């Protein structure tokens, strides 16, 4: 189902702007609230939704997304309930692409073939699985492509020119450039370095290139949007969820708007990037 992804990037390209890719963790802070957030994201300006599948041991994530995952797991979020979220979202929105992002073990334990069939049926468009490099393509990447799901690969500052073709080979949907050598939500990238890295990747692929890790403010989004096809924001949104919670970690009436207000500001930032350039 890469059609929704292609259509959405084509739309953004037509408007001469970068797409805004928003990450939230499924089931954070609880299943119902995360469905409400999910449903509100497109209206606030999200072009693509990355839905994090919680895992106990997220080795590429910083504290914000680690804690979001633990909040979700505490309420029993699982692969099954995450696919339920996608299904419920799809009932009201058939255009916004959803990419599941997570780690391999919960998918492996669920069963790869069953997962791919259920994900496709639920309305998932693509997958980003952090701990599956090209060397392990037979595990999930190739079966996913066969099942009609996009498999979005991460390219990083350590991915040199020798390695880049292998990284891009079975990538589909878009390429996710990790702006820093590091974990999610940590350092702010050097935007000049990121721009030249994006240009380098674009010489090797016709796919859209989006940039994430360390993008926190509308100004960051604008800076990335100048050269990239999309901007990913994750930890900042997950932090907005956290700061809206009450003393017992429960959602409040401000939780959904805390996320959508930030998404609106980030969308404006992403849209302003090229106008300002």
């Amino acid at each position: 189902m890469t059609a929704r992804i292609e259509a959405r990037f084509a739309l953004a390209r037509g408007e001469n702007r970068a797409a805004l890719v928003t990450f939230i963790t499924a089931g954070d802070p609880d299943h119902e609230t995360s469905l409400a957030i999910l449903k509100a994201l497109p209206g606030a300006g999200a072009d693509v939704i990355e839905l994090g599948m919680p895992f106990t041991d997220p080795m590429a994530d910083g504290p914000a997304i680690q804690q979001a995952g633990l909040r979700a797991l505490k309420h029993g979020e699982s692969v099954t309930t995450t696919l339920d979220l996608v299904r419920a979202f799809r009932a009201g929105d058939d255009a916004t692409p959803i990419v599941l992002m997570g780690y391999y073990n919960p998918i492996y334990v669920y069963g790869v073939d069953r997962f791919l069939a259920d994900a496709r049926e639920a309305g998932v468009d693509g997958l980003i699985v952090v701990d599956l490099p090209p060397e392990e393509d037979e595990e999930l990447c190739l079966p996913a492509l066969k099942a009609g799901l996009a498999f979005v690969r991460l390219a990083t500052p350590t991915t040199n020119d020798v390695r880049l073709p292998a990284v891009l080979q079975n990538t589909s949907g878009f390429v996710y450039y990790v702006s820093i050598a590091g974990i999610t939500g940590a350092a702010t990238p050097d935007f000049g370095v990121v721009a030249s890295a994006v240009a380098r990747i674009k010489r090797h692929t016709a796919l859209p290139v989006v940039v994430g890790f360390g993008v926190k403010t509308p100004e960051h989004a604008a800076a990335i949007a100048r050269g990239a096809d999309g901007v990913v924001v994750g930890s900042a949104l997950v932090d907005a969820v956290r700061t809206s919670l009450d003393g017992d970690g429960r959602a409040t009436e401000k939780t959904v708007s805390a996320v959508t207000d930030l998404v609106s500001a980030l969308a404006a930032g992403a849209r302003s990037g090229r106008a300002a350039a």
Partner: protein
Amino acid sequence: MTEQPKPNSFRTGPDDRGRFGIYGGRFVAETLMPLILELEKEYEAAKKDPAFHAEMASYRTHYIGRPSPLYFAERLTDHLGGAKVYLKREELNHTGSHKVNNVLGQILLAKRMGKKRVIAETGAGQHGVATATLCARFGLDCVVFMGAVDVARQAPNVFRMKMLGATVVPVQSGAKTLKDAMNEALRDWVTNVADTFYCIGTVAGPHPYPSMVRDFQSVIGDETRAQMQELEGRLPDSLIACVGGGSNAIGLFHPFLDDPDVAIYGVEAAGFGLSGLNAASIAGGRPGVLHGNRTYLLMDRDGQIEEGHSISAGLDYPGIGPEHAWLNDIGRVKYLSCTDDEAVEAFQLLSKLEGIIPALESAHAIAKVVELAPTLPKDHLMVVNLSGRGDKDVPQVAELLGTSL
């Protein structure tokens, strides 16, 4: 030196994708992939370099104090009334456990690669202490990640590491124990890709770690072969070792895998028992993917990792090295399990009979010797790996036995 593997051997793994059967592999983030490929290349080059082996041999002799003795435990043997029990005395190594064998190899490799900063994860602190020790010896910066819970319960080792010049980072994420320390070490490595060497403490992690650590630990089994030939004129009949990640066990086992007459037993930590909280990944787990490799893991129905429990902080890990997972599936090694109570009993027994206080980890293996030896004939030669000394565990055992120090 280990002899060349024979065709149809159990000793030729892993394959070029780092797999032992379905286990092992390289399940890491893209940022780390170029680093582990570089490590693999450098290790392959070092393996072929006689100077690397000569340097390692020299430090083994003069710094670690190898070979470690293969000691006939006469009083334990008499007490059990069956098999003749030998102890491979890894607890006599500098720093008090087998961990230093691996760390020496990795630090010499780090030096060769020009790395200035070494990171490590530790549970009980034995690997952290060994890493801090070798970093002090070679003038490298050392950062040890340790779960905040373990920092609190292993205070003497934390102080030892600091005295050796290492920075100890208490890990507050997740469950705050060994698996989280490993997550945090991986996060550090992803962040400091240019100058940092990750010194993993056991036969787990992405390829090439499981086989590289095994190679560095195989000195245990190589020496045992030669020593048993000298003492008894033949190979042992059985080998037994405790298994957390499984580095001391694979070090003893690997040189014997192709000797069909040598029975091999690994002992997992059964904690409160297999129906309760435990750290027996093979007995109580299923295949999954964590920390760069596929192996048996303790996890819930949804693939979320569960906490291991063992009285021994060194066995308290929800996984096991991938080569062990494979050796279990093909039936070459039999994996048993031992509860906290059995280990504490064996800890006391060996102390009283032989004047050797074993680490609680090693006491798990001793407990199974106590079970197996009486069922075997007197000419049966059994080797148990005494992987570490128990000084670090004395306060914990005292408390358990109701003595306040």
